[in-house]
């Protein structure tokens, strides 16, 4: 990547990283607190509000990062999002059928993991395609 492009991208990329880490940590800390400590319910309501607030901030940071990308990198991300969304819909349908037919129990935690894997696979595919 060119120096000017890297310089333009570094700040939004760092902000996206920080917001994403903060969001992940807020989920982890709230989950651990709820699971292992008996804290007042009000504290969890506050934690939930903080978590949603950080999540909204992470969405904003993601949009700013996408805007800082050049048009081809943005196209790679767009295609990767298409892959992630498509995989999510297909998996949701398949797992819904499996659940209804008592073939398997579906843990909802599998969906963000599938979306993340779809996004990663789509991004790698894009980088190879436009290499």
């Amino acid at each position, binding site marked *: *990547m*060119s*120096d*000017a*492009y890297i310089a*333009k991208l570094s700040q939004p990329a760092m902000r996206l990283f920080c917001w994403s880490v903060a969001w992940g940590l807020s989920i982890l800390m709230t989950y651990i607190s709820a699971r292992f400590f008996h804290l007042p319910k009000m504290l969890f309501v506050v934690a939930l509000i903080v978590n949603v607030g950080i999540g909204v901030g992470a969405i904003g940071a993601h949009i700013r990062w996408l805007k800082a990308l*050049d*048009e*081809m*990198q943005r*196209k790679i991300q767009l295609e990767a999002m298409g892959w992630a969304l498509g995989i999510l819909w297909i998996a949701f349908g398949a797992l819904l059928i499996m659940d209804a037919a008592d073939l398997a129990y579906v843990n909802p935690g599998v969906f963000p993991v599938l979306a993340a894997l779809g996004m990663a696979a789509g991004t790698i595919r894009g*980088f190879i*395609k*436009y*290499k």
Partner: protein
Amino acid sequence: MKNRLKELRTERNWTQADLANYLDVSRQTINAIETEKFDPSLPLAFKIARLFNLSIEDIFQD
């Protein structure tokens, strides 16, 4: 879409990174345009044309 980007760049002894710097895009994007894997948008095509002091049609052909 066919283009003369690589030819014009090498005439000026520029690297892909140099051209990427001038156009404010990634080096990967320059490579993808040169190898005709990616067609630039109209604003980027205008930017390229202005940089080489040519018209868009002189650089990009159907």
